[in-house]
């Protein structure tokens, strides 16, 4: 195990975050504040509580998930895409480092950054609403697993993309709609029956639902199912990354 190499990649990536601190940290905080002002205070004051939870409070887990997913994907995808784009990836490919170690470095850094952002958003939210967490251990578990799974997913996109457009394509066309339609800002029970069934096909629903349960013990689907789905997604991503490296996908000729 080349521990030094994992550390080198990890800290190099974290240093990149520090260099773009404003963009990395400030932008999710600002957008969260905006969501709270618009949904929480302005619109939320006219909405009755959802499933017995005040609306401003109800949207907190969804907001965290929204940022977590987009940030994990964009961080991890950019982290591996950029060296490919500049050509510096030659160094990683010629280093005595296994693909698993490469993934640990990049995905570890991206997931760490997402965790930091998630925590900051929770702290920001606590200024607006009276935040209570019913099951802190479950909350952290969902948080960590989501960060890792979607950082892995971002890493796959970064490996796959060969231009900047493709890099933006999946987050924009797939992730954002899935998050918005996955019950981030509403309970699935508020939908007509047909759309409730359709929503069950959305994997993000399970994430948000499980995460929300850890706060308020209110969920759209059972928490075990949520945990099962997120674990499955994580394993699937791991498998795809493993396949990509095994075949040298777009990295080796």
């Amino acid at each position: 195990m080349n521990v030094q190499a994992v550390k080198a990649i990890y800290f190099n990536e974290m240093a990149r975050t520090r260099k773009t601190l404003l963009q990395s940290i400030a932008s999710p905080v600002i957008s969260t504040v905006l969501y709270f002002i618009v949904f929480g205070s302005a619109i939320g004051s006219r909405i009755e509580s959802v499933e017995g939870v005040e609306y401003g409070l109800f949207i907190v887990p969804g907001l965290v998930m929204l940022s977590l997913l987009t940030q994990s994907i964009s961080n991890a995808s950019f982290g591996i895409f950029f060296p490919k784009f500049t050509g510096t990836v030659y160094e990683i490919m010629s280093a005595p480092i296994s693909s698993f170690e490469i993934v640990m470095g990049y995905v570890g850094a991206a997931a760490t950054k997402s965790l930091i952002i998630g925590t900051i958003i929770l702290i920001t939210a606590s200024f607006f609403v009276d935040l209570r967490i019913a099951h802190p251990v479950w909350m952290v578990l969902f948080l960590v697993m989501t960060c890792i799974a979607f950082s892995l997913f971002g890493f796959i996109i970064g490996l796959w993309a060969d231009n900047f457009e493709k890099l933006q394509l999946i987050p924009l066309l797939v992730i954002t709609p899935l998050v918005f339609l996955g019950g981030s800002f509403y309970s699935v029970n508020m939908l007509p029956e047909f759309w409730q069934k359709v929503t069950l096909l959305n994997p993000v629903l399970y994430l948000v639902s499980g995460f929300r349960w850890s706060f308020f013990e209110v969920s759209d689907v059972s928490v075990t199912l949520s945990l099962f789905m997120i674990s499955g997604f994580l394993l699937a991503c791991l498998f795809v990354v493993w396949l990509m490296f095994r075949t040298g996908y777009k990295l080796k000729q």
Partner: protein
Amino acid sequence: MATQTSEAQDSQSIISIRGLTKVYKGGHEALKGIDLEIREGEILALLGPNGAGKTTLISSICGLVTPTAGSVTVGGHDIIRDYRATRSLIGLVPQELTLGAFDIVRDTVRFSRGLFGLAPDEDKLDGLLSDLSLLDKKTAMVSRLSGGMKRRVLIAKALAHEPRILFLDEPTAGVDVELRKDMWKLVEKLRQDGVTIILTTHYIEEAEEIADRVGVISDGRLLVIDDKASLMNSLGRKQLSVELKTGIDVLPESLKPFDLELSADGQRLTYTYETRSERTGITALLQAVSDAGLGLKDLNTHQSSLEEIFVNLVHSEDGKVKP
């Protein structure tokens, strides 16, 4: 351990390449069965035109390209099975100036050392940067450096993990004279430390100036590999030009056996001879010229350079390939 050392001593080669073949996805056959032994501590220059397969050869050894067939061992280890062992021994300076835009010189060199499994070492880092005249640029952003300075940074990155083997892919392409001189000084210093250096180039002077051995690659094949001196000897020819006082229209009968070339204006005779042969026949030729009653104005000899040897080799190869 013991067997590995003895194996290495037996062959004295640090890199063994056997039947290395690479066919790219599009069907392009970049390497057509290369066999090559690279000796420990030597400087080997690989010459060849663009697209000859030089970079593919290097990339295969370093792990950037997966060979289609054949095997490569580095320090007795297989490059695929024991990639950790082989890659730790190798430093690579790529052809393109590939550096992250936002990197700081110090950080990027430190990163390279880490990638190759070594803990940071500030003294070594400073020493390396000072060897490459980069010490005053330690905290500079890479993107603000000149092309020559970027090249130095790439070399620093390649040397950051103290490799035993250094690959320089077209190291002096687009590099100014000063840096080129500095680079050769560095190469000389590395050689004294026992580092094996493999460089590719299409500048023949470079190979002539610095290499111990020269290999010529063309169209995916290794055409020849030999000590620089013996390559020039065995393939080199010398020409003697005899300038005549008064021009002649036809060669005298007595000079026919020498296989001379008469210039169009009849003023110059050219005699070609092999430098390696014991009897060059110069004395006999001059005697015969004098006997034929031709007055000498001037004599000139000219030895073919590596460049001419190279052009000859590559062209004769073309001749063979064409139907």
